[in-house]
C-alpha cells in the first residue's frame, strides 16, 4: 500500500505552509523540471558541512578518509540503483555535463567526417546541442529517427534511419515533452548490430522506474539527482568500463591524474577518477546517496504504478473537458502535455499559478511542434509520487475556468 499522506510528511515543501505570492497553497506539478527533497536528503547534505567537511582524495587524516569512504559508498549505491558496477559510475554536475562529457570525451575523439549521429525529433536540448558541436568539429552528420503518429520513437524507425556509417545513437528513455517510454533495450540491440554505441538519457526515466543498464545493454547512461529527490548540481555518467578507459576526460586538473611532468606527459588515473577533476559537489554527493536510499525504500515499481494511476485518473477527467486538448493521451509516464483551447500556453500556466498550481509552459523544437503537435507551445503538468488525487481534482477544477485566464490578472 502506497501511503501518500505519510510520504508527504517527509517533505518540508509539502508541509502545508508554502504558498504562491497570493497566499494560495502550492500544488507542485513541475516535477519533470525538478523535484522536492525529503528531510533525509537535506540532513545528509548538511551532514557534510556540519560533521565531515574535508576535501576528498586527501587521505592523510581521518576526517578526509571519512569523506572518501562516503563518496565511495554513494557511488556504490548509485551503481546498485541502476545495476552497474561501481567503477562504471562517474559523478558529474548533472545530465547536461554527463552528455557533454560523452560528446567531447568519446564523440570528438572517435567520430570523423561522414560518420552519423542519430537522435530523435523529441530530444531535450542537452542531448542535441552537444552533438551539433561535435558535428561541427568532426564533420559527422546528424540524423533523426522519425516519430510515429503519437510522437514516439520506435525501434522500427531506428532501423529505417541507421546505416553502417552510424557510430552514435543517443535517445532519451522517457522524453521530456511527450513522456513516452522508449524501448532502449531493442534500440541498443539495433545500434550494436550496426557497430554503433547507444547512449541513454535517463533524466526523465530514472526518477520514476527501475533501470538495469546490463539488461538495457546501453553503452552510456546519464542521470540527474535533482529530478529524483536529490540535490541540484550532481548527477552521473554511466559508461561500460572499456569505453571509459578508451575515452578522454572533458575536464582535467586536480584529482584525475596520478602524475605529470612539464614535458606534457600525463598519467591519468583509471576511471572513474579520470573524469572527476577538481573538487566535486561533495555535500550533494552525500544527499544523492540519501535520495537513492529513499526511492529504493519506497520501491521503484510502486512509484511507477502509483504515478500511472494518478496519470490515468487525470487523463480520464481531462478527456471529458471540451476546452482541453491533450497531446499525449497514450504516454507511459506522469507527464501530461495539453492546451486550453484558444489560450496561449504561457497565459494558461500563469493563470494556474494564480491558483497555486505550478506547471510549465514551453515551446518545442521546430520539427516536433510543426509535424506532430501542430501548435507553437504547450502546457506541461508532470507528477511525482507525492502528488495526490485531490491535487489532480483541484487542477481539473481550475482548468474548467481556464479559458478566463485573465482572472489571474484581476483577482
Amino acid at each position, binding site marked *: 500500500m502506497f501511503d501518500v499522506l505519510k510520504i508527504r510528511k517527509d517533505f518540508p515543501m509539502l508541509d502545508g505552509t508554502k504558498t504562491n*505570492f497570493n497566499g494560495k497553497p502550492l500544488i507542485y506539478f513541475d516535477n519533470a523540471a525538478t523535484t522536492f527533497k525529503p528531510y533525509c536528503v537535506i540532513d545528509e547534505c548538511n551532514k557534510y558541512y556540519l560533521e565531515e567537511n574535508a576535501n576528498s582524495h586527501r587521505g592523510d587524516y581521518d576526517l578526509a578518509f571519512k569523506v572518501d569512504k562516503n563518496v565511495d559508498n554513494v557511488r556504490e549505491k548509485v551503481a546498485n540503483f541502476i545495476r552497474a558496477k561501481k567503477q562504471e559510475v562517474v559523478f558529474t554536475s548533472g545530465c547536461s555535463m554527463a552528455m557533454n562529457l560523452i560528446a567531447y570525451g568519446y564523440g570528438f575523439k572517435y567520430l570523423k567526417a561522414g560518420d552519423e549521429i542519430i537522435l530523435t525529433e523529441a530530444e531535450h536540448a542537452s542531448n542535441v546541442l552537444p552533438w551539433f558541436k561535435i558535428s561541427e568539429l568532426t564533420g559527422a552528420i546528424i540524423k533523426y529517427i522519425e516519430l510515429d503518429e503519437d510522437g514516439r520513437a520506435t525501434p522500427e524507425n531506428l532501423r529505417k534511419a541507421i546505416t553502417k556509417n552510424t557510430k552514435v545513437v543517443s535517445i532519451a528513455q522517457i522524453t521530456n515533452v511527450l513522456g513516452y517510454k522508449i524501448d532502449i533495450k531493442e534500440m541498443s540491440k539495433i545500434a550494436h548490430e550496426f557497430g554503433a554505441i547507444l547512449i541513454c538519457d535517463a533524466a526523465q526515466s530514472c526518477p520514476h522506474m527501475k533501470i538495469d543498464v546490463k539488461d538495457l545493454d546501453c553503452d552510456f547512461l546519464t542521470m540527474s539527482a535533482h529530478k529524483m529527490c536529490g540535490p541540484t548540481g550532481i548527477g552521473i555518467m554511466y559508461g561500460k568500463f572499456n569505453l571509459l578507459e578508451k575515452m578522454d576526460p572533458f575536464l582535467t586538473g586536480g584529482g584525475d591524474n596520478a602524475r605529470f611532468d612539464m614535458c606534457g606527459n600525463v598519467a591519468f588515473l583509471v576511471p572513474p577518477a579520470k573524469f572527476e577533476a577538481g573538487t566535486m559537489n561533495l555535500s550533494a554527493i552525500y544527499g544523492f546517496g540519501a535520495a537513492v536510499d529513499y526511492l529504493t525504500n519506497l520501491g521503484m515499481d510502486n512509484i511507477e504504478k502509483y504515478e500511472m494511476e494518478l496519470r490515468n485518473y487525470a487523463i480520464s477527467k481531462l478527456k471529458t473537458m471540451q476546452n482541453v486538448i491533450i497531446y499525449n493521451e497514450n504516454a507511459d509516464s506522469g507527464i501530461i502535455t495539453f492546451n486550453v483551447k484558444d489560450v496561449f500556453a504561457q*497565459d494558461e500556466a*500563469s493563470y494556474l*499559478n494564480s491558483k497555486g498550481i505550478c506547471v510549465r509552459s*514551453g515551446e518545442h523544437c521546430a520539427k516536433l511542434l510543426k509535424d506532430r503537435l501542430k501548435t507553437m*507551445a504547450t502546457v506541461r503538468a508532470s507528477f511525482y509520487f507525492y502528488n495526490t488525487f485531490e491535487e489532480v481534482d483541484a487542477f481539473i477544477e481550475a482548468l474548467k475556468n481556464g479559458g478566463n485566464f485573465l482572472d489571474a*490578472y484581476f483577482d
Partner: protein
Amino acid sequence: MHISIDTNMMREIIMDHYSSPLHKLTPKNEDEYKTIVMDSDSCIDNIKIFIKEENGIIKEACFDGVACAISTASTDILCDLITGKTIDQANYIIEQYENMIYEKEYDESVLEELVAFMNTHKQASRIKCATIGFTGVSSIINGKK
C-alpha cells in the same frame, strides 16, 4: 486627466489588443526600419520589433512573433501610443509605464489604455511579459542597438 476604469474594461482592452492587434505584422520594406529581436530567457515570448523614425519622430511602430496575451496586448498598445510622437515623448511614456509596473509614482495622463496593466505586480511572473515590448522599443529609439 484621470481615467476612471474598472477591471472589466481592463479585461476588454487586453483581450481586444490580444485577439486583434493592429500593429502585429512584419512590414514590407523591412530595411527601412530599425529592428530588435526580444527573446525572453524566462518564457516563450520571442518578438521582433520594427520602428521607422524620421527627424526624431516615430513614423511607424510594429512587432511580430510568438507572444502571450500580456506581451501582445501591451506591445500593441505601445506601438499605437508612440506613433507620431517624438523620441522624448516616447521615452516619457515608457518611463511612466515602467514606474506603474514597478509600483512607483507615475503620470497616468500619458498612459491611456496602458493602465489596463496596472495589476501586473500581483502576478510577478508576468512582469517580463508586460515589459518586453517596452524594453525593446527603448533599445531601438535610444540607439542601444
